[in-house]
């Protein structure tokens, strides 16, 4: 059955504020498709964001939505999830928001392995503030604050998430919406901290300065770089140079989830109290 997207959107808040051709819309569509796949109730979902273009997404979604401060979405989301571990918490964030100002919260949410799904729309730039370079801007690229070319090395967000302890990590790209939806769905269904990086296009701020001011040119640039994990396995290091591997990069179903661990701790403490009270009765 086709997805009734409007059912999940706040139609009265449309049209959205993103530039024509922006990849964030495709990510939101995939997200809604994933929620529909899982048959989650809108009342049971909180969507949390920080600051930036991507962080405006929750405002359009007819759920419990929280647009927080720059970089801090995961901290608010952790509070929401710990207060209501029975509910679904999704964070949607940009590359600057999630991995620069929010970098500390990012690695610690991975480490705790709390059951939150983090979707990072990685468009390699700070879009809303006018195109400054981010921790994922490629070497040599032009940005508002790298007029002479970027010398900052970029993060590999997938490896960062895996290293910090996230138990589901996947990478998709806006040229393949179907794949994005599958990764988001699998990440949401996974019990633990899930990171889904979505390579996206900001032709307005990134493309314009790097000879790709047309959204199609930018999406083609992304499509030209990505290599599915299965294909990459058969490629040499030389062939993989400058390529970005997409796919399910990591999955660990054994790693204890944080709210489960807290529930166990609570049970243990209360059982001990009960035994203590019984012994003194």
């Amino acid at each position: 059955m086709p997805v009734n997207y409007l059912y999940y959107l706040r139609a009265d808040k449309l049209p959205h504020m993103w530039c024509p051709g922006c990849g964030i819309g495709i990510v939101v569509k995939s997200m809604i498709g994933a929620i529909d796949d899982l048959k989650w109730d809108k009342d049971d979902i909180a969507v949390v964001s920080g600051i930036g273009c991507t962080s405006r997404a929750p405002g359009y979604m007819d759920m419990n939505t929280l647009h927080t401060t720059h970089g801090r979405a995961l901290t608010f989301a952790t509070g929401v999830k710990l207060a209501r571990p029975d509910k679904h918490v999704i964070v949607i964030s940009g590359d600057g928001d999630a991995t620069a100002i929010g970098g500390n919260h990012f690695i610690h949410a991975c480490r705790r392995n709390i059951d939150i799904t983090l979707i990072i729309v990685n468009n390699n730039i700070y879009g809303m503030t006018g195109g400054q370079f981010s921790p994922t801007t490629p070497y040599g690229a032009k940005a508002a604050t790298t007029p002479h070319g970027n010398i900052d090395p970029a993060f590999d967000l997938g490896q960062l998430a895996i290293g910090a302890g996230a138990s589901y990590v996947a990478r998709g790209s806006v040229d393949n919406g179907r794949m994005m939806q599958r990764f988001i769905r699998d990440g949401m269904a996974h019990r633990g901290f899930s990171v889904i990086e979505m390579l996206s296009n900001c032709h307005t701020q990134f493309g314009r300065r790097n000879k790709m001011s047309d959204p199609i040119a930018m999406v083609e640039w992304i499509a030209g770089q990505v290599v599915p994990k299965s294909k990459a396995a058969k490629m040499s290091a030389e062939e993989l140079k400058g390529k970005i591997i997409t796919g399910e990069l990591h999955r660990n179903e054994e790693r204890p989830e944080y709210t489960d661990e807290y529930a166990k701790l609570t049970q243990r403490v209360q059982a001990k109290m009960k035994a203590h009270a019984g012994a003194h009765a």
Partner: protein
Amino acid sequence: MASDIAEKTDIVFWQGNEIVAEAAIAAGCRFYAGYPITPSSEIAAVMAERLPEIGGVFVQMEDEIASMGAIIGASLSGMKTMTATSGPGFSLKLENIGYACMAEVPCVIVNVMRGGPSTGLPTALAQADVMQARWGTHGDHPTIALAPAYHREIYLSTIKCFNLAEKYRVPVILLLDEVLAHMSEGLRIPDPSEYEIWDRVKPSVPPEKYFPFDSAFGDVPPMANYFEGYRFHVTGLNHTKTGFPTTNPEICQQEEERMIRKVMKDVELLTDCEEYRLEDADIALFSFGTSARGARVAVDDARKLGIKAGLLRAITLWPFPDHKIHALAQQVKAFIVPEVNLGQMILEVERAAHKDMPIVGVNRVGGVPIAPYEILDKIKEISEYAR
């Protein structure tokens, strides 16, 4: 364990930090997020032990900013929440305290004041974050901050912080200082009949008619919890009654004025002060927290010398008791303001007195309390001058 002693004697011997934690639980706090910092650490330690016992949540976050974010998220999900910190940590929390002001989310922040600026004197007393508590986060916002001075009062003030947070939908700040936090005093734990517990007003309308910032229900709009069918939006941007962003100047002005008004219209109700020997006073002391304990002794000593001194002790520091200072200014010849900083609340006394009269400070920094004799010396000096 402390509670075992309580069962036997009804009297506990707790330090201020332990009192804050136990009183928070009595107030209904079931969510605590924090980050280790001296001299507030014992609050987190007690919460870590106690909250799992009663089905609450304790989490130690990766930093101060994160713990402030977590208590806001948990509050939106319907819990009464608290974090505790000291100077440098309070500086870091200010960003999200502003968020709680803007999004009107109830929560309690304890700041056990220590010497500063910067790392300052981590293990020693100060009262130098009082203006930061009022104005630290950017933008216009109301502030409610309580500054108790005695252990029973710490217990009751902590409960009051939660009540006021719920009643006004604001972050409420509890200001302790290192001496109150670490000094142990005998305390009979107040019986629940001795205080009230207030909860946030929930919407009386169905979800389709609900707006999270609807002033049709008063200056403090009813607050729904997440996951209860209301599916509302919360943002730190200026917003309309719907919770969605706006840049409309008129709406921004109206909403910001409402946020201030919801607290300030109750200023006389909120400003809790103790008036000590002020009836016939010629010299009024204004003080709070640890300094007020010394000031009270100095008042008695001055009276023995025939000097008519009295003390106005603010238990609610913000909003400031303007009306009480203004009334006193018509009665007394001078104000003396002892505080462990280089002159902060004295600026408020000068403003509220609004009169050409001697208003002098007794100030100390360096981590030690102001001794009563230092205050007495100032009283004697002023009584000569203001005769």
